[in-house]
């Protein structure tokens, strides 16, 4: 697999949210607006890239039997770094995302990439994979957040685009499920067309 393919597969063919259905909790829980989705996506990307780097560096030192707990400790360390940094520099975003920041540690996407990719590949490929997957994840979260924000509060990235308040249900829990369902259907449709 060439380098470009490793980077771009995270956006479309193996997109974490739309295709692999990984990391669903933050995907639905934090995307009440486009900016929140983007913030969560970038925080996750940072943790993903850093943990991929460390895992690929120490993969030979970790005994096979304890590799999962070892990966979790590595991931949890970076999550703690992100948590403290966000608390200090972007307290507003930190308050909105709240519980979902410590929960980055149990995002199956990150452990999945550490196990499936970084523990088998060299550091450069692991970095590319981390960035590709992380940015693909951010893209999906931003899209979902933008759609929910447009339908639910009539604005996108806090810029008003039509009069009125929109349907509140799209900002609340049921809207998250329904919008993501239709987005996945749309992505399926586009991929099917490409393959024909």
């Amino acid at each position, binding site marked *: 697999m060439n380098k470009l393919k490793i980077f771009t597969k995270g956006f479309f063919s193996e997109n974490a949210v739309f295709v692999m259905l990984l990391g669903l*909790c933050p995907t*639905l829980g934090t995307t009440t607006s486009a900016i929140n989705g983007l913030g969560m996506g970038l925080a996750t990307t940072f943790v993903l890239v850093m943990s991929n780097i460390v895992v690929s560096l120490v993969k030979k030192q970790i005994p096979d039997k304890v590799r999962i707990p070892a990966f979790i400790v590595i991931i949890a360390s970076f999550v703690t770094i992100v948590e403290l940094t966000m608390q200090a520099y972007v307290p507003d975003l930190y308050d909105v995302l709240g519980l979902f920041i410590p929960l980055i540690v149990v*995002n199956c996407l990150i452990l999945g990439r550490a196990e499936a990719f970084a523990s088998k590949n060299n550091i450069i490929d692991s970095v590319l994979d981390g960035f590709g997957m992380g940015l693909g994840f951010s893209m999906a979260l931003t899209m979902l957040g933008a759609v929910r924000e447009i339908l639910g509060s009539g604005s996108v990235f806090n810029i008003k685009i039509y009069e009125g308040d929109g349907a509140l249900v799209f900002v609340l829990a049921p809207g998250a*499920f329904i919008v993501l*369902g239709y987005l996945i259907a749309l992505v399926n449709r586009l991929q099917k067309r490409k393959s024909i």
Partner: protein
Amino acid sequence: MEYILIIISAIFVNNVVLSRFLGLCPFFGVSKQVETAAGMGGAVVFVMTVATIVTYLLQKYILISFNIEYMQTITFILVIAALVQLVEIILKKVSPSLYQALGIFLPLITTNCAVLGVAIIAVQTEGYDLIKSTVFAIASAIGFALSLVIFAGLREQLELSDVPEGMKGVPIAFVTAGLLALAFMGFSGIA
């Protein structure tokens, strides 16, 4: 009265899956059959309750007294991972058929964010004492099991219905979950 309020709120009003968005991976992963859904629900009730009690004691007597609260994420997730291993070993001996049925999803409880999420909500966000934390954990887990079983029932029916081509599989499952969440929103007036 206070306890009843915590229970009703955790099961119906702030349902872990449908309103807090925790534990979605098993929610979509093991909800194809009612029977496996119930098994998964039972495993989560046990793990979540024990995990919350242990993390509460850990937070109160170790993290706070040594002033190292920033270690919370790391210690909590390790405790939960160890607990899941324990449950796995016990279940393998006691009920091999259930162990077979749950398959890969049992180790995945470690990365079930509902377990870590409920522990953090109980000890940090809400600041419950030990008894309230335990009650909250049991009620949350029951809420999780309840929504999982209902959703599995809906999906079994869905197998038989005529779904448009593009919506087959995952998309229609999400829309169904959305409608279920809408139904649970009706409880929000209670507490």
